[in-house]
């Protein structure tokens, strides 16, 4: 990734920018304009690329590096009985700790929590994305078209999105309290954060509340470009409302839908704040991100191994999704830019 950009960056400047615009008389006017633009573009883009490489590219490389070395605090006897010093190369020891803990390590160590955390993260992702897409589609369909007070509805729908997750989590923690309003309204006596299923359900409900508006807005933007006369002619042809939805709305809103799903999946896979504040990770709500933070201060290099695993996992999911859904997000974006 790093090498690629460095190769691409000068290419923009050198190949097209080497011919200074004024010196070449007027032989290639279009080429002249373009070469000047290439140099200018390289200069304009460089600060952003350098900043992102420094704060994103460098840490990724550094995390991989340190995950293969013994932690400073971790010096002691190795498995084979030799004294090991902090900073020494240990290969995939830390990866082994997370991935193959099952029969080796003591119950209660963080390594033991890896697969449960992975499972929790995947459950959260699948449940919230499905719920949010269905509800978001319903919201969008209801909001599509003209009616009185549209602005007000749009403002209302933005409120859950705008409130910080930390506040949302505390608010719902209060509402999900044993004596709280949720139990009161439902007439139940559930200890919401006290056992796995209710705790996980609570996280899923809260995330759905917070993020459905975002999905709805993306889908609404997709719906609004569908011309009304397509529906009209389908109606004339005798298509009922469900047929119109499946055969016109869904295919036409599909690009917006796929982009929304992709963003949401990648977003929930790194979920941290909501379960962390709601339960502190208790009762099977520990996600991969929470596990990294729990390990961070005990052994940073071990945490680096886990965060690298998490990163690779998210990357693979993104890759599979992009391939499977046939979305080319970059192309979609570039088309929008070229428009």
């Amino acid at each position, binding site marked *: 990734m790093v090498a690629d*950009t460095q190769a*691409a960056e000068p290419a*923009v400047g050198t190949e097209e920018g080497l011919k200074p615009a004024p010196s070449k008389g007027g032989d290639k006017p279009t080429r002249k304009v*373009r070469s000047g633009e*290439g140099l*200018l*573009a390289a200069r*304009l*883009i460089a600060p952003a690329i350098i*900043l992102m490489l420094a*704060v*994103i590219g*460098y*840490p*990724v490389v*550094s*995390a991989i590096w340190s995950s293969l070395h013994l932690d400073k605090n971790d010096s002691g006897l190795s498995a084979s009985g030799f004294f090991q010093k902090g900073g020494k190369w240990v290969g995939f020891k830390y990866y082994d700790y997370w991935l193959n803990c099952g029969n080796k390590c003591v119950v209660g160590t963080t390594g033991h929590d890896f697969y449960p955390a992975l499972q929790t993260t995947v459950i959260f992702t699948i449940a919230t994305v499905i719920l949010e897409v269905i509800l978001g589609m*319903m919201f969008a*369909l*209801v*909001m*599509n*078209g003209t*009616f009185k007070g549209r602005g007000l509805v*749009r*403002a209302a729908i*933005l*409120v*859950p999105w705008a*409130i*910080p*997750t*930390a*506040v949302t989590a*505390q*608010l719902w923690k209060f509402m999900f*309290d044993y*004596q709280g309003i949720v139990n009161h309204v439902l007439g139940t006596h559930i200890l919401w954060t006290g056992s796995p299923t209710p705790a996980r359900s609570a996280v899923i409900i809260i995330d759905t*509340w917070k993020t459905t*508006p*975002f999905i709805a*807005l*993306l889908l609404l*933007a997709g719906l609004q470009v569908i011309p009304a006369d397509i529906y009209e002619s389908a109606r004339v042809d005798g298509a009922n*409302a469900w047929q119109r939805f499946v055969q016109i709305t869904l295919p036409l809103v599909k690009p917006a839908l796929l982009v929304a799903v992709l*963003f949401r999946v*990648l977003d929930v896979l*790194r979920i*941290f*704040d909501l379960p962390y504040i709601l339960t502190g990770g208790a009762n099977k709500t520990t996600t991969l*991100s929470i596990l990294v*933070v729990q390990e*961070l201060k005990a052994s*940073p290099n071990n945490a680096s191994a886990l*965060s*690298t695993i998490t990163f690779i996992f998210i990357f693979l999911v993104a890759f599979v999704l992009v391939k499977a859904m046939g979305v080319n997000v*970059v192309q979609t*974006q*570039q088309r929008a*830019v070229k428009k």
Partner: protein
Amino acid sequence: MTAVASNTTGAVSTTTEFTPRKSGIRWNVVGRYAGIALIIVWCLLPFYWMVVVAFRQVGFTFDSTPWPTHVTMGNFTAAFDTSKNHFGRALINSLIIGSVTTAVAMVVGVFTAYALARLHFRGKFFVLGLILAAAMFPGVALLTPLFQLFTSLHWLGTYQALIIPYIAFALPLSIYTLTAFFAEMPWELEQAAKVDGATPGQAFRLVIFPLCAPGLFTTAILVFLACWNEFLLASVLPNGKASVAPVTYAIASFTGSDPKVIPYTSIMAAGVVVAVPLVIVVLLFQRRIVSGLTAGGVKG
């Protein structure tokens, strides 16, 4: 599935209904307004409850009366009581961190977005892909290396330890949103102004800038909101130092006089202080925020 079907059915037919019904109640319209009412209740009810409880006396924390009762301002004084929490300080910290991040991300973002929207150059596709990858990057993958790096630099518990990563995360958001805005600008006007004798500087200052201003403003709001709401880095990198920790961390770690009892009413009061300005911003600029969100397609 049946619920979805019936709901979408109603909605689709209303959007395409142009011929008015001859007689009777228009159930389509009734159904739509019922749906809208449901959406508003679902979105606003928890927020309403937070406001109600924020003004309720501590002794009535779990009172379930749906309208304001036992009204007091005590929760707000308790929230700002510096002997237990540093909520006021956290607000200032978040303002400082958010403003600096937004300013830098906007300046750098404007350069990049201008190049992406206006200039032809090789590797544009690649740059767009790189920025998109950065936008989707999981923050937790950076947490440990940044924690180690800032530990060795003695930066833990400083503003720059949060501002610098925030800039890198805010940049993709600002670049994508600005690029989408710039792509829709009527750039012919710049040329027209030059033909009419304006210098390039004048053309930019007098013609282009006023047209850009709404897009810049919207992007700035989105970036500021993203920084203001961030929690993962905010909970780790300040290392518990109250003089630096942002407001999300302060709210998540609120403690009361009795450590066993969660001071819900004060937390709700603090939540109201944090959320109400955001809700007002959203009310005022909802149209622009929505266009910015859907243009960028990147979650804030």
